[in-house]
């Protein structure tokens, strides 16, 4: 799944993230298919976008991360994904 095709160079549109989550991610993961989230040509995303994209999936089943390939992420997007992946698996004080 090319994120740029839905969200553009700056991924801030949470509706686009929700669409990918519901129509691709959850659909494929339910069948235990490997998925690819390709961030090629995406320069930056908001934390809100990444949250809307993956937080629920990770929260419901952290093992799903083994089936998700985050591809072509620059340093900033990788950092955002790591933040969301971590807090989605934990409770807060």
């Amino acid at each position, binding site marked *: 799944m090319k994120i740029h095709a839905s969200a*553009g160079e*700056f991924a*801030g*549109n*949470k*509706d686009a993230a*929700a669409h990918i*989550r519901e129509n691709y991610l959850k659909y494929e993961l339910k069948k235990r298919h490997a998925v690819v989230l390709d961030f090629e040509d995406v*320069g*930056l995303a*908001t*934390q*809100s976008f990444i*949250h*809307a994209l993956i*937080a*629920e999936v*990770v*929260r419901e089943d*952290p*093992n799903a*991360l*083994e089936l*998700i*390939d*985050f*591809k*072509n*992420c620059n*340093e*900033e997007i*990788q*950092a*955002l*994904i*790591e*933040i*969301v*992946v*971590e*807090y*989605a*698996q*934990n*409770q*807060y*004080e």
Partner: protein
Amino acid sequence: MPEQVGLSSIEQFAGLLATDQMKDLTVVLAGSDPRVHPIALCMLAALADVALASGGQVVVDGVAASADSSLQRMQFFEGIKRTDLVESAQPEPTGNRIPLRQIRDNKEMKKFATDFIPLLHTTPSAGAAVSYVMWELVRNVIEHAGSSCGAFAAAEIDAAGRILIGVADGGIGVTKSIRRSHSAPDERRAISLAFQPGVSGATSAYGGNETNGGAGLFFMKSMASLAQQHMVMITDSTLMRLEKHSMAEPVVHSSLDQDIVSWFDLSVPFPGTAVGVNLSLEETVAFSELLKEIGKIYHLDVRAGKNAAKKAKFT
């Protein structure tokens, strides 16, 4: 409207708001070329929208603003729906500003991001920061403010090279928004909760729901803190200003209680929410470094899970 308004003295502007219980909005211009922070322009545009929606009018008193004035360049009179005061000779965009715009939904936000944010000529890192802040603040309005007028947004680069950003709405305010899902005995507590990572008015669950992570304002506060700049929120009867860090190495705090913050009580409440952020043009803090600092907060603030957290896989 005073001659100059910045975030460091925004309480003086907010304190000038007065009410006579009438539906009209009256804007009094004190000088021929007032230089005001975008947050003030956005607040007035939101107030104008509230007045018009209530059947009132927008009245402008005082000195006329010439074509090359800051108010004209920021398209303020279009924003308050007084197009009769727009000077016909508009100067070409210089790359120093994003004029005042109204954004009602996601479609308009996409157009704003495509057509207007690039008007601001900055470094790539600063441009990314502006996009980030604008997207998050406007989305907050669209999702949480309950405002039919949407968000008013504007930005400008000042003479000192700072990027000044303002977003405002005439919605329900932060206190009501937070109280949908959390206990907040007063407005200050509501604002503190709004800035706390993992808290969203959309749900009582910490960490948010599938759509809202409750981290947008915290991220922006972190950006302002690390850039050693101000951030302001004005909502209901309360004004909160995050003061500049004076430390050699500023830190990110998860709670407003740990930050240096000034609180002001407003005699006339603002019917909605306004947020102002100043960012630095210099690439003194790379965005990736900012995210690493924020990541530390999340790591330290969570209760340890029973098992080691799963990691994302990157190729």
